[in-house]
């Protein structure tokens, strides 16, 4: 049995704001295996990006605090790593592609500048001193890998000169350059039109196949992760509520929230109207105790209000955080 690549255990995180603490992450349990494509689905504001940012430790230290839990990466706890160690992880092991490619690129520097810097600081260490020519060659190779045309000219361009799709590919190239184990893609292609988004997702899939890297694909739309991932987590209000092999999740959703999400997808065939889920996500300043989905759940029981449900194994690889099981 392999060891998991990444494992978040019971992670609690809060943000300090004027007026109190936002208890954003409420016991996140999340596992990724080597070479796996994992999907993470949830509404905007449920804590997906925050979880990822805490894995990389790029949350502002003054405002965020992990109150409980561990993040084990390749056997070591990320939260306990020293600054140099986490820097190493960022340089070579894990990287993240952000939602908005336009905002992720520094507008006053060329693509070449930024990409080459990433390569320089990721690959160059005291051991292997790569010269500038070699760095440039690697940059061009990266750009080719993400299917960008005319890499030479691309290096001299500024982000503002590229289209959205191209910018997203550049971000992917930079992420590739600084990660060998895990790539986190935060809603890639959300701000792009559907055909481009499709291309990007396929590109990511190809990369995983070719390089053996693991990928976490975050999305707020179930449809996006359907064809691309092996396993999918569903997240709600700060913790995972269900996890299963993707096919299994779509065919046999267990948690009321997951069911609600799937029902909300408009269908071309079958009976007409879509059904939404009534209510809103809870505020994080004073969230409900117990199961956070309780106020919106149609099948709620008394115990749901009092205690937060742990992950209950229903079948092989399929777990639900719900008292109904």
């Amino acid at each position, binding site marked *: 049995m392999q060891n998991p690549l990444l494992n978040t255990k019971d992670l609690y995180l809060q943000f300090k704001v004027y007026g109190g603490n936002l208890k954003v992450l409420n016991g996140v349990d999340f596992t990724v295996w080597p070479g796996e494509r994992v999907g993470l689905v949830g509404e905007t504001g449920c804590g997906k990006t925050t979880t990822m940012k805490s894995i990389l430790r790029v949350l502002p230290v003054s405002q965020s605090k992990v109150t409980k839990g561990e993040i084990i990466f390749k056997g070591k706890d990320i939260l306990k790593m020293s600054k140099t160690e986490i820097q190493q992880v960022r340089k070579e092991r894990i990287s993240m592609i952000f939602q908005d490619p336009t905002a992720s690129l*520094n507008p006053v*520097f060329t693509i070449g500048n930024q990409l080459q810097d990433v390569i320089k600081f990721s690959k160059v260490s005291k051991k292997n001193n790569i010269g500038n020519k070699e760095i440039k060659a690697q940059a061009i190779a990266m750009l080719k890998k993400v299917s960008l045309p005319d890499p030479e000219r691309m290096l001299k361009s500024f982000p503002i000169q590229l289209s959205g799709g191209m910018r997203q590919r550049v971000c992917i190239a930079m992420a590739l350059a600084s990660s060998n184990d895990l790539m986190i893609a935060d809603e890639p292609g959300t701000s792009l039109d559907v055909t481009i988004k499709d291309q990007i997702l396929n590109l990511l899939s190809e990369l995983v196949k070719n390089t053996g890297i693991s990928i976490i694909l975050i999305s707020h739309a179930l449809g996006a992760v359907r064809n691309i991932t092996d396993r999918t987590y569903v997240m709600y209000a700060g913790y995972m509520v269900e996890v299963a092999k993707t096919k299994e999740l779509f065919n046999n959703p267990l948690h009321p929230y997951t069911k609600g999400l799937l029902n909300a997808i408009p269908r071309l065939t079958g009976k007409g109207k879509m059904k939404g889920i009534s209510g809103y996500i809870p505020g994080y300043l004073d969230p409900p105790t117990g199961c956070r989905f309780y106020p919106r759940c149609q099948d709620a029981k008394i115990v749901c209000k009092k205690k937060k449900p742990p992950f209950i194994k229903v079948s092989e690889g399929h777990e639900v955080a719900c008292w109904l099981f």
Partner: protein
Amino acid sequence: MVNLIIFLKRLLYILLVLLALSILIFAIARVVPGDPARAALGPRTPEKIIQQLREEMHLNEPLHVQYYYWLEGVIRGDFGKSLVTRRSVHEDIKIFFPATIELVLFSMIFITLVGIGLGAVCGLNKNTWIDNLGRLNSYIGVVTPSFVFAIFFMLIFGYILEIVPTAGRISAEVIAPPKITGLITIDALIAGNFLAFWDAIKHLILPAISLGMAGMAQVSRITRSTMADNSERDYIIAERSYGIPEHIIMYRYLLKPSIIPSVSILGLQFGSLLGNAFLVELIFRWPGLSRYGMNAILSKDLNATSAVVLIIGICYAIANMIVDIIVNLLDPRIRLQNERGE
């Protein structure tokens, strides 16, 4: 190629503005009640001679003709005679202009280096004691007029502590270098006369800093807030997550986009320095153009006044143009927008 056309367009625009300025000045000058010819010659001169001068000065012709003659003279560099100094205004300008330029130049250096430096340090260390000190400094700089600074500095550093001299450009004992540019510091360096150079610098410090405090406060304020805003941007977080070391992020990727707004107001700063220089020139008895112009204005010396206003207007326009070019170089977004003609 495209840049050249835009440059020329800008140039044309500036010329038009300067033309309008000259018309404005001319109009004001002619609106003044009183007879310029009589004012030039004095109240006791007989009427016939005054009439002669009026003919010479084209004062009896219609306004637009007068304007034409005036403009022609200006282009040749002839502004006429100054009422106050009785010399040609051209001469006066050659004497006083370099002094003001030197003062303003040093002030600009102060504003740019200290303003951006202080702002950057504060922006990177947000909400620490360094930042609070910097903000206090900004506040004081903004609310205090330059002449009040001049007086305070002169009192403290000139009289109480006696570190620096309080008047003039150079001490009486020091031999001034031969005049090449008119800027004593540069002339001294060219001549290799380090004593004069150092002495000139000592004379420059208080006036330059007094003049520049307000501008420095503004620049540091803007730099600080831009830096603080940018430090939370997505691209900075992204760069951090790619593993780029923190010091590279701060001194390169954060600094460059943050100084752009400050640089773009440097042109305005230059203009206001030129305009406000006389306040400081008065107190430190600096023989500069601003002081000369101010005297001219108070004595209703129209030739001198128009000359000074025009020259300052030109300098202002040139400074703005230079700043535009620099901003274009720094920020590709603006450069490309301009190329597309937006």
